[in-house]
């Protein structure tokens, strides 16, 4: 990531994002922050879907679990907020471990169906358990400590956590484990034959991804100061899935692009018509037909000949990520 060629463009984008809140209206700061939060969620999903090749159809559950864990600890206990923030991803990863343990025993569509069922179970609990989770009312008006009280400070907090998470995810994907995960995606049978315990690696992949989903959930609480059961509803999970597909699920940064496209559409087209999903649908159809590897995948394809010369040491595909 800190290769000379990419360092300055990356750094300048980062600095631009840092100073942006100083001169754009609050509303845009909010939308940007929402894009960051959702990007992190989409990227965590892409770890299992794009790089791991597993049909994680109900990823929203772990986002919701992370958000609810943080929200409940902030409202129902007097523990310091940092503990709530750390508990969010950990509890999400734990639920990921339990659900994943069952799911990795199945493949493809069966994996997806089982996950939707188990995830919906958790949604039902959250949705129905009024006395604890607030049911379909959710939890509102969560008080943030003074450090995160303004929108701008939340924005910076979210941006920094996002960058830290992205760096960690990038390292994981380029590690031997990341390689093994992608090898399993391409050919699970062959992986078994070279001594890789496929199920255990898939489960570890799910746990890592759900951990980051939980982190995104915590950031959602920081931004919105509220949680609601819709976060865990399967329709929302499908939306995250679409973000990955749209952006390019074999690329590292594709999901961010997909998230930005969908959230921008919803915000700005959604203003004029409630049928904004119609436009989303048309875009999706076009992408599937003309850019099967997603928008980011398309750009990478264009720049590939140029990049091939630059990249050194046995990596050409998904090099720029």
């Amino acid at each position, binding site marked *: 990531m800190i290769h000379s060629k990419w360092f300055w463009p990356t750094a300048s984008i980062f600095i631009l994002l840092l100073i942006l809140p100083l001169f754009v209206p609050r509303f845009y700061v909010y939308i940007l922050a929402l894009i960051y939060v959702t990007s992190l969620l989409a990227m965590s999903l892409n770890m299992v879907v794009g790089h791991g090749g597993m049909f994680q159809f109900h990823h929203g559950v772990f986002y919701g679990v992370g958000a609810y864990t943080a929200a409940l600890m902030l409202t129902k206990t007097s523990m310091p907020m940092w503990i709530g923030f750390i508990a969010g991803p950990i509890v999400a990863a734990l639920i990921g471990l339990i659900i994943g343990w069952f799911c990795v025993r199945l493949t493809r569509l069966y994996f997806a169906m089982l996950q939707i069922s188990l995830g919906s179970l958790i949604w039902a609990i959250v949705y129905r358990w009024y006395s604890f989770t607030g049911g379909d009312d959710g939890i509102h008006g969560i008080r943030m400590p003074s450090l995160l009280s303004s929108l701008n400070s939340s924005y910076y907090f979210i941006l920094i956590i996002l960058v830290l998470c992205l760096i960690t995810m990038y390292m*994981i994907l380029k590690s031997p*484990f990341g390689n093994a995960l992608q090898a399993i995606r*391409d*050919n699970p049978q062959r992986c078994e*034959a070279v*001594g890789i*315990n496929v199920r255990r*690696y898939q489960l570890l992949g799910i746990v890592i991804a759900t951990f980051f989903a939980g982190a995104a959930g915590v950031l959602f609480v920081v931004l919105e100061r509220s949680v609601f059961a819709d976060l865990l509803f399967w329709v929302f999970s499908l939306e995250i899935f679409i973000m990955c597909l749209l952006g390019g699920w074999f690329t590292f940064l594709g999901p961010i692009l997909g998230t930005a496209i969908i959230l921008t559409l919803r915000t700005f087209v959604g203003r004029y018509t409630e049928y904004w999903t119609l436009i989303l649908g048309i875009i999706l159809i076009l992408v599937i037909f003309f850019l099967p590897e997603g928008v980011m995948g398309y750009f990478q394809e264009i720049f590939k000949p140029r990049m091939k010369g630059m990249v050194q*040491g046995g990596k050409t595909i998904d090099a720029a990520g």
Partner: protein
Amino acid sequence: MLQVEAVVKSFDDFMAVNGANLRVGKGEIVAVIGPNGAGKTTLFNLITGQFKPDRGKIIFKEEDITQLPPYQICKKGITRSFQIVNIFPRLTVFGNVQVAVLSHQGRSSNLFRPAQSLAVKETKDILEIVGLLDKEKNIAGSLSHGDQKILEIAIALGNEPELLILDEPTAGMSPEETQATIELIKRLAQMRGLTILFCEHDMDIVFSIAQSIMVMRHGQTIIQGGLEEVRSNKEVQEAYLGGE
């Protein structure tokens, strides 16, 4: 080193392997031959754990490995190449072999070191032996069929096996590639002291490499023995060689 005893495997009503016996001694090169559908590939799948036998025993280095999953059998020291090309098409040639090398070294679950810099020497050594070093940066899926078959063997070598199983290593290759592959297999046996078990349709290849031959028909072992013994066996001539 490897003993297969009266192994049986059926799919629904079809007896794919019906009483196969096989002995492979350390350092030996053993060939399995038989007409199409004789159960050779199924037998290999049983040895490497892709399928579980219905009956019978598979013993490797005095240890019963009959019920182990494939990844554990691999860790015991048996690896294989596949008849139909079975590689990681989206990874580079280097990446394909490195996955196996890292798995063998027990470093696959390392989360935070960049994989690029790990096991480079070991991986390149293997690519050098099989002659793919100049193509290490190519995407595996873009290689020619012959090179992909060679890559198959290279991946299997990544685990530093004691017993290497090759399922029709030269299938679909041009005559030159076939010749090169035969040389490679001989070299591996000599240089690395590998024990090799393979199956092959081409009798010339079988008789030029193998030291011992096992003949299968309808899932059953007819005979296993030295080249001359097999060549002169009546039943074998009738079942197989005679028909050539």
